[in-house]
């Protein structure tokens, strides 16, 4: 199976983007307290609501195995970014200069949903979501790039299951 997050070698003329840091989760360490979800949603959306969190924990005690945790993988070749850029003159998905985060500028998002459709992880892993206002505003993990202490989920996790890996420490 083709890994869509890898560069498609047939595409020669797309320049390599600045690499991004990423949130890595050790699902075996997850305590399923879902503090990451409520802290994330309060920080970004101003309310405590797992349904608008950019990191999503799901588990069922009656299904064996670790919980499944969905969060943006900040791809080297981000399909969401290219989908948005190819559609709009002024794209809403931008690259943060410090962390490299691929983030959605909610002021610029027109709600077309091209990013979510393009994402290779969706819909099995709900890493891109939206709020329904007058129009849809899409959101995804932005590594809390505007927060001095770094990603809030990493800071709050009582199981130390969530880590931030800077771009330079990411494996190829």
């Amino acid at each position, binding site marked *: 199976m083709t890994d869509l997050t890898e560069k498609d070698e047939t595409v020669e003329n797309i320049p390599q983007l600045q690499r991004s840091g990423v949130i890595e989760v*050790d699902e*075996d*360490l*997850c*305590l*399923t*307290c*879902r*503090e990451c979800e*409520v*802290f994330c*949603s*309060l*920080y970004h*959306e*101003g*309310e*405590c*609501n*797992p*349904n*608008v969190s950019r990191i999503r924990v*799901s588990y*069922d*005690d*009656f299904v*064996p*195995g*670790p919980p499944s945790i969905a969060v943006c993988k900040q791809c080297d070749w981000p399909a969401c970014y290219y989908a948005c850029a190819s559609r709009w003159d002024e794209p809403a998905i931008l690259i943060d200069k410090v962390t490299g985060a691929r983030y959605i500028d909610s002021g610029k998002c027109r709600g077309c949903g091209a990013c979510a459709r393009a994402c290779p992880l969706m819909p099995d892993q709900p890493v891109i979501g939206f709020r329904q206002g007058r129009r849809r505003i899409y959101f995804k993990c932005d590594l809390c790039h505007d927060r001095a202490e770094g990603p*809030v989920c990493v*800071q*709050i996790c*009582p*199981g*130390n299951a969530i880590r931030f890996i800077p771009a330079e420490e990411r494996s190829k």
Partner: protein
Amino acid sequence: MSEIYGWTGEILRVDLSSGEISIVDTMKYVPDFIGGLGIASRIAWEELSPDIDAFDPENPLFIMVGPLTGTIASGAGRVEILGIAPQQHPPVFSRSGMGGHWGAELKYAGYDGVIVQGRAEMPVYLWIHDAQAEILDASNLWGRGTYGTTKALRAIHGSNTRVISCGQAGEHLSRIAVIQTETGNAAGQGGFGGVMGSKKLKAIAVRGTMGVKVARPQEFFDLSINAGRESQWPSGFRRRRRWDARGVQTDRDGNILRRRKCGFCVSPCGYRIRENVQATDGSSIPSVAQHCWGYMGNSQTVDPVARAITSDYGLNGWEITYGMIPWLQMCKQHGLIDKVDSVDIPVPDDPIEYMRDTEPYSSEFIHTLLRKMAFREGELGDALADGTCYAADRLFSGEGIPFLDRIYPRHCGQTAHWAGHWGPGGAVYWPWWLPPVLQWCTDTRDPASDSTHQWTEHVQPYMPESGPHRGPFSLEKVSAICARVYGNPDILNPAFEYDPPELKAIPAIWHSHRAMIVDSLILCDREHSRVFSMKSEDGAADTALMSKLLSVCTGYDVSERELDRAGERIWNQLRAIDVRNFGRGRAIDESTIDGFMYPGKDDGVMLDRGKFLTLLDKYYELSGWSLANGCPTRAKLEELGLGDVADELERMGKLT
């Protein structure tokens, strides 16, 4: 209507007899009664008629959440359940709490609580989702355990559905039936699973996507992220590291153990769940490996199948482990019973004086006992299904009743716990078990759900010495903090025992009032209310934390003093219900002392009844309760804004 923060503004009221669903306005009761337990206590005062029994259709079952439920405030995953509790001996209006994820989901579905009244003709369940509620047919769920019920409802309503349910024990009106959620959390004490069963209410399934609105998000965020760092016991750091190193484990039978916590909490508290335990019917089930109770052993030696079956039947494992089995062993030692069905009751050679003296037992024994209770098999199963205190009234011509003395402070029907006597639980040393005994005397249940836990979790571990235990703080430091928190530097000074009496009465009252706040916000008693801190410079915790959290979340500015007053108001409101409906008073409070009239388990110290009564007098005096009958006085009730309560109690002749 202006925007509501914290609360959702609506409490769902469901009458199963008529099928009518209506809404109670939360905002009528706040901030005076906060939420959760506080609002339930007020509604119960307004509506509870004097002559209803626990299994009467009109017994209101309150399943409540609070303004902080489902938020980032650590410990915000809990639910508080109230109603006339069948386990209590005799039944009184009481409470039970549980963690997990159900409470937050109810909040996200748009409700501050559910009040269930009436009785359905056929088994039903409630399906609550995003501001809608339906009463649906549960005929095909009736007879199933809590695990099967949860799985079936998830198959219908989606895997993110959160479920509370009663098992077969609840259906058979067991007085020790729990309300279970998932595999690891249950509202265990009080027998509220039986109340569900009596209403033919099998389950409540919830799914919500609406979130909790916050008045001042940035302040709430900053406050909680800092408060989260406080979430340690003095020994908590070591505990946390050990957890991190292990992650997933395998037990001796090859079962995989995974770590779990209640929802919405960052404390180092938690439990393990075993995957794929082989059930007796050959199916594969999950089982909680370690909570605070177990079947005679630690997390590695308990029978995981028995644990799973207990939750599936929806039985109170705590009562069975720490009350019923020891009592059966004592009964056998005195020749009253020999076997349960064909299985021998194991007994130790020596007389049982404390929980620690009891004899371990086989899987076969516990499985047989559980089955007999869940289905009320035979006279023994039928009697034991009502819990040990009721069983003792009925079995062996009452000859087993004297053996209850060490285990049960009789009026509440729950095992003596964390007050230095029977066991189990952490050691509480003389004279530190005096305030917990005062709390036992004045409460309607085992107060370890909220009040005594604060004492044992947040106070005793920090003190320079208590028994063989050595805490991190010097007596000087402790005294300075006590002066600030309790208004008296000598509260924790080991030089004082009964005299002066306020040294024990003050903390008993302070922690009981704080417990009411915790159960109303709703947070967790293992997180709140702290007295000491390992993080602050002077070692004192921020005792205003709960009022700050409430204020920034809801936008109502409530000071620490005002919130303490609300806690006192709720405590008095509950007391007034107990006085009015159940004849509570000094005589019942004093009868509770009998359950502690033997040497303390860790220190051998004998309670002095005469001296203890001076503590009780002081407790009443400082509470503004009558020394003669233990009823709140008019002056106190009016000071708390409960003038209508005083009027009604006066009409009944309860005010002296």
